[in-house]
């Protein structure tokens, strides 16, 4: 008896006991869920099988980054959908980040009008549900832009219509290898040059305009190669043929609407995160930087932002995750993402709702964890080194 009461009185062992009990109930609950599913599936005469992944999907997808036709498997259709999710998340994250940082800084501007506009942007945008943003943008593109036969033409090479945006597509010809080679050389040179300048500055204090030199090298070296090899790039201009434009690069109204909506919506949150990050830096830091004679841009880039970054990155990560997960609302406007392909049409054609949903959930989980891991790695690079 005393043995047990001793265990219970010992804080350490009591904690362990409580945790074991909680773990036990959690395990019991999960196994109950699994058994319940199994029992109900059995009652319905269904089994769990992933064989459907390898039979032909039979449906077409209007946007694919890897080759796809309706004879390919459901698995491949799922991958096409996943890449479409990735594409819209990628564009959305870039748009949200650029717009968000700009708005966050503008919001702190001393210019009353600029600051108020940023304020109203943030308040309006983040208080309207994302689904409405998506439907709004889709509606705007479809209802305000003309039919392809009356498309708005920009210089006869780029066209805007309610079927999306068409831009010329660069086609490479023989001789392009030289341009690629020069580009790689330029990159290598830039890295070495930057290292050299850094060492030089550390030793002597002399600063070189590294940034401008490198930008020019990277731009001009491939350009020179381009002319030497006889301009081996031609443009495929989109042309109206039958119902629609053919050729060129095409951005569907769905992709455009989704990118705008996700980017603009998430930018409002990022703006607030950036503002919070900048405000979190003690004003003494700014004053100290100014007192040693740094220009305002240097104060921001060398003193404020590097410190603000530490505050910004963890919440920024969760905004990126939100954006990626919100992209699954694509289904509302018929953008063929992962949920619309594997979790939508494949689900319906095969009737495997449990299996497809499990796969889709696992994929979203791993995508989110990957973004998280990447951002954590970046965070560990910029965080304050402990002394």
């Amino acid at each position, binding site marked *: 008896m005393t043995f047990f009461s001793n265990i219970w009185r010992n804080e350490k062992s009591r904690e362990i006991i409580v945790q074991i009990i909680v773990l036990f109930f959690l395990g019991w609950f999960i196994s109950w869920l699994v058994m*319940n599913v199994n*029992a109900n599936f059995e009652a*319905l005469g269904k089994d769990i099988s992933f064989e459907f992944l390898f039979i032909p999907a039979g449906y077409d*997808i209007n946007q694919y980054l890897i080759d796809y036709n309706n004879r390919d498997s459901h698995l491949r259709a799922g991958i096409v959908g996943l890449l479409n999710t990735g594409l819209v998340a990628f564009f959305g994250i870039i748009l949200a980040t650029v717009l968000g940082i700009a708005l966050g800084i503008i919001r702190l501007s001393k210019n009353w009008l600029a600051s108020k506009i940023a304020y109203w942007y943030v308040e309006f945008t983040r208080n309207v549900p994302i689904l409405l943003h998506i439907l709004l943008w889709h509606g705007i593109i*479809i209802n305000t832009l003309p039919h392809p036969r009356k498309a708005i033409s920009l210089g006869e090479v780029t066209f805007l219509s309610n079927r999306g945006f068409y831009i010329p597509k660069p086609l490479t010809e023989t001789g392009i290898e030289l341009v690629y080679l020069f580009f790689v050389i330029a990159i290598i040179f830039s890295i070495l040059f930057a290292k050299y300048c850094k060492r030089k500055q550390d030793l002597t204090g002399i600063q070189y305009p590294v940034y401008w030199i490198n930008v020019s090298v990277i731009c001009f070296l491939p350009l020179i190669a381009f002319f030497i090899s006889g301009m081996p790039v031609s443009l495929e201009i989109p042309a109206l043929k039958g*119902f629609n434009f*053919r050729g060129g690069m095409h951005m569907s109204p769905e992709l455009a609407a989704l990118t705008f909506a996700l980017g603009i919506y998430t930018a409002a949150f990022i703006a607030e995160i950036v503002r919070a990050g900048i405000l979190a830096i003690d004003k003494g830091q700014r004053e100290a930087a100014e007192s040693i004679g740094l220009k305002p841009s240097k104060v921001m880039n060398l003193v404020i932002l590097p410190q603000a970054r530490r505050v910004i990155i963890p919440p920024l990560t969760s905004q990126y995750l939100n954006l990626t997960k919100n992209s699954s609302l694509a289904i509302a406007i018929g953008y063929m993402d992962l949920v619309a392909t594997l979790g*939508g049409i494949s689900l319906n054609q095969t009737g495997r709702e449990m299996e497809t949903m499990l796969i889709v959930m696992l994929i979203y989980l791993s995508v989110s964890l990957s973004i998280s891991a990447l951002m954590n790695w970046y965070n560990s690079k910029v965080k304050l080194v402990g002394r």
Partner: protein
Amino acid sequence: MKTKMLLAGVTAGVMFAGSVLASTLDDVRARGKLNCIINTGLAGFAAPDDKGNWTGFDVDFCRAVAAATLGDANKVNYTTATGKTRFTKLAAGEGELLSRNTTWTFSRDVDLSQTFIGVNYYDGQGFMVPKALGVKSAKGLDGASVCIQTGTTTELNLAEFFAGNNIKYNPVPIETNAEAQELYKAGRCDVYTTDASGLYATMMSFDNPSDHMVLPEIVSKEPLGPVVRHGDDQWADIVAWVLRAMMAGEEKGITSKNVKELAAKDNKDKEINRLLGKDPLQGLSKLGLSADWAVNVISQVGNYQESFEKHLFPLTIKRGMNALYRDGGLHYIPPIK
């Protein structure tokens, strides 16, 4: 030890609850209402009228089953489902009957463990285009944007038709008929494709239906019919014979107007007597239905012809394949013996 027993008990309980199948008819009678899964909105088949009551050809069938089993056609709870959610809802027990323009296919019947109990509408997939587009045939649709309602057999037919004719197209998959209509009207798509019946229904809901046309090609077979879950043969038989009773009504000239009268007298045609409960119909008790089941169906809902003409004639849909066999159609029902 105690927890272990509790665990075992709960497990057994769960397994037990999962494996016992109560009779669907008993469930419906105990509830006093039939749960019926219908379309989210398709004029003529299932759409709310100006008083907010669901009405249409598919809704009529729900009402007929309620009339046969509960004696009152109004005792129906309607649950709407999109093309994508309908089978899940049926499997999950949100309804006893799925009456939602559902195409009978091999894999839906076999792989999804459902029972298709017959065909109440023979349909086929067609294409609707604005007349201004100047297209006369589906083969002239090369490069067109096509709005499709997702979660249907439509997607596969479309892919097969265009691939078979070497035509390129740009599919725009949409969740519900209403959204697809909006996109078609806004010009996002050149073409809207679904079952021909749905196209006519959609067209009639437009402000100026005469600006649109349905192309002559019908690219698939779409036998539409009611669906029930696998495993309860009694219930499947009830639903199947309610459908046949409605068609028998048309065949024998029994309408909602004269059914009471015919049920009261001794008819020369003994099949009418058996259907309306005047003469015994062997095996009816096994279905668990009362003798006046068909009288209830026809008096409260009408026969097949009445339902068809009431809901589908306004959409300019003709009987065509959906006439009785004796009128050159495909509906041929087993004898009521």
